[in-house]
């Protein structure tokens, strides 16, 4: 049985429907990416899952218990980290975590042990006596994650956790989340940084205007989008030289003359070529078309130094299924 089951979730604010018939589920130990443009209903859904809001219709079951009918029973099982980390001024890291541990009802030695263990897990021990206001954004985010873990929840809801973090902090966050998933915790992450999500998440849900547009394993989402449009993208890089610019223009013209090439764009010193194949084409036909293109370029004396298929990523899948509308 899934740890979390969301069935037909709907949330209306007067005439505005922020979330419309959203259904998905998540197993223990799974990491689910929640993707959508601004105003798509991601935060509203997460707030409902965190029991901070109630749906107009639909049901949410956490470990078989209804979040809507018995939120008090569900709260100990979930940890929520909003997009604002929510730390206090004039409080050290240890005091902050100790305060929340008290608030969760942990007492005496058990509380101290729990705070120490969470600080160790999040790497906060060296910063224990520092004021939270003196910390970098990445470290404050760790403190917030530590707070979320104090009561050992089974489901973690993280709203834009990687927003504003530097690359190192993002990589460290990814490792922390992986470790949590390995411990059997289910994690839902809403984020705009789709490349990050692709690396962290097992599965994704894409919503727009409150409606669920696509869901499934990340690999399936990438594959399904590519199959639907029969599009192959290639990256062609020419050797740099004195006549580089002229050579690039010549290559662009030549490529556009080829039968299956629909589009050529220049980006970061390379050419991005878009090939459209016939209906029913498979990987074999795509490879053959790419090989023919490469042969043409070389035959025309163009100094091709790199020629590779551009791999479809989550951003492409996202752009394919969404239209940029907001609720």
């Amino acid at each position: 049985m899934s740890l979390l089951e969301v069935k037909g979730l709907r949330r209306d604010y007067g005439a505005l429907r922020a979330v419309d018939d959203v259904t998905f589920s998540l197993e223990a130990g799974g990491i689910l990416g929640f993707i959508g443009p601004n105003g798509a209903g991601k935060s509203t859904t997460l707030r409902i899952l965190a029991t901070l809001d109630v749906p107009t219709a639909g049901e949410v079951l956490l470990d078989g218990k209804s979040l809507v009918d018995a939120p008090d029973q569900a709260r100990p099982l979930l940890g929520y980290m909003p997009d604002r980390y929510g730390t206090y001024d004039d409080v050290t890291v240890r005091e902050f975590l100790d305060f929340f541990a008290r608030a969760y009802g942990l007492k005496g030695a058990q509380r101290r042990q729990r705070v120490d263990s969470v600080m160790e897990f999040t790497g906060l021990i060296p910063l224990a006596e520092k004021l939270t206001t003196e910390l970098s954004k990445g470290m404050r985010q760790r403190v917030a994650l530590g707070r979320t873990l104090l009561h050992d929840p089974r489901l973690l809801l993280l709203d834009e956790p990687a927003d504003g973090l530097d690359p190192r902090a993002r990589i460290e966050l990814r490792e922390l989340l992986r470790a949590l998933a390995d411990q059997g915790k289910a994690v839902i992450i809403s984020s705009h940084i789709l490349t990050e999500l692709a690396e962290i998440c097992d599965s994704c849900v894409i919503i727009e205007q409150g409606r669920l547009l696509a869901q499934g394993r990340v690999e399936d989402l990438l594959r399904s989008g590519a199959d639907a449009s029969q599009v192959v993208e290639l990256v062609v890089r020419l050797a740099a030289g004195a006549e580089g610019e002229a050579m690039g223009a010549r290559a662009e013209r030549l490529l556009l003359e080829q039968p299956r090439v629909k589009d050529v764009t220049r980006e970061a010193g390379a050419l991005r070529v878009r090939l459209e194949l016939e209906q029913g084409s498979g990987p074999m036909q795509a490879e053959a078309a790419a090989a023919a293109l490469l042969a043409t370029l070389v035959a025309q004396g163009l100094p091709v130094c790199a020629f590779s298929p551009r791999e479809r990523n989550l951003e492409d899948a996202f752009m394919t299924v969404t239209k940029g509308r907001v609720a």
Partner: protein
Amino acid sequence: MSTQASPASGASETVPVASAGVSDRWEKWGDRLNPLVVKEVRQGLRTRVFWVCFGLLLLSCLVLSLIAYVNTQGTSYSREGRTYFFSFFVCLGLVHFGVIPFNAYRSLAREREDETWSLLLLTGLGPRRILGGKVTSFLVQAALYASAVGPFLLFSYFLNGIDLPTILMVLLLGGAWLVFLTFASVCAATLADGRMGRAFVRFALVAALVVTFFQTLTFIFVMTEGRGRGFSFDRDFFLGMSAGLWLLLSDGWLLFEAAVARLSLVTENYTRHPRRVLVGQALLTFLGVTAVWWFLDRDKDVAGIAGILGGLHLIFTGLFTVSDVDGQSRPLRAGTRPWSLFRPGALRGFRLAVLLLLGWAAGCAGLLWASDVSAESVRMGMALVALALYGIIYLSVALLLGRMPKSGRFASPAAVRLLFVAAGALGAGVPPLLSVFLGLEAGDELINLLNPVVGTVNFGRYDWNDPSGLRMPPELLLCVGLVALLCAFAADRVLVRREREAHAP
């Protein structure tokens, strides 16, 4: 990497057994404390504001006491105590009636702005414990400030000119006022959600704190000076003080519960406590009024004044109960019955407000009738019943205007309250103007029949030209009653419809 707790470090093993026992007891005691108190006091004592205020308070009291020492050194019998007591009290008042309430407001407002509030709610602490912890922590800080001024207040007693009962009475009233202001400030922090609203509330609170600060000091000054000139703490004074303290206590409690309700999640039965407190306040106040009325030989003025003031209070509080949102969350619906008036929803809030207004008016009218059956009692009784009926009419009109249209554009709680104010202002202002325009007396009885201000006054006014002394015949009160009944019925039906819509799948 694991979040599971590792075994405790050996630090505690190195502590001697006796001191370990003491620290264990301290820890157990600390565990029982509200976590908010520990955190807020710890945080508060680290702020610059606290140490600057504490230092300035101590310094100013020290300077004042040195001046007092120099001034009274040569005199054999000084009577300067009153002046210096007031001066020390002004220093304390600046902190107690200004800094503490404002800091309490700011603390909660920041908690809401930074969304740490919702994180606290998820811990299971509950809004009552959280707000209670916040208020307690600020009262602890107030006690710390008072500890700095306390010795100086006692010192003023030894300067003569002020007696201990006066000092104790001032401290009692000051303490009650501090508690009330802290509750009110915390409640104010829950009022607005948007940036503009918050800015307005902050401005209004600062203005109110400044005004009430000077009013409080004026009151204390008049009281201490009056005591010096022979004013005694007689029966009337104690009755007045008791009534004032009861109002501060019960209204402070009501404000606290209202703040808790505003910060509760919709899945909770957030209206139960404030509505219970409101009903409890009305019942206990009525019992108190009855006791005072009995104690003062069935004085009808007590019943009349209490009827009018209580009616106004219930209209004001009723405005908040009737403007609740429509319907209630799914977990609460199952156990709701027609008489579950403490459960959330504008419908039940409206019914409760109507019942309280009618009950209060009937109770006070009953006391008047039991006093005597003179024309004066009848007039007072009609005035307070009319006030209750006007309250019902204008509350109903605000609900009808706000919640009857399908668009729901003016259905929000704030819009309904604004509509009530607008309808009341129009109802009070237009009829007198119309009377003057028609060449009649501004307070004409018929044209002002539904005027909440002039109408109430007319029902209570003595008419020298009429042998009965009544300016308004009781039949007109029946007309107002009929209008109130129709308005209340219409508002009730609208709220029933809206609740059904809100609960529809």
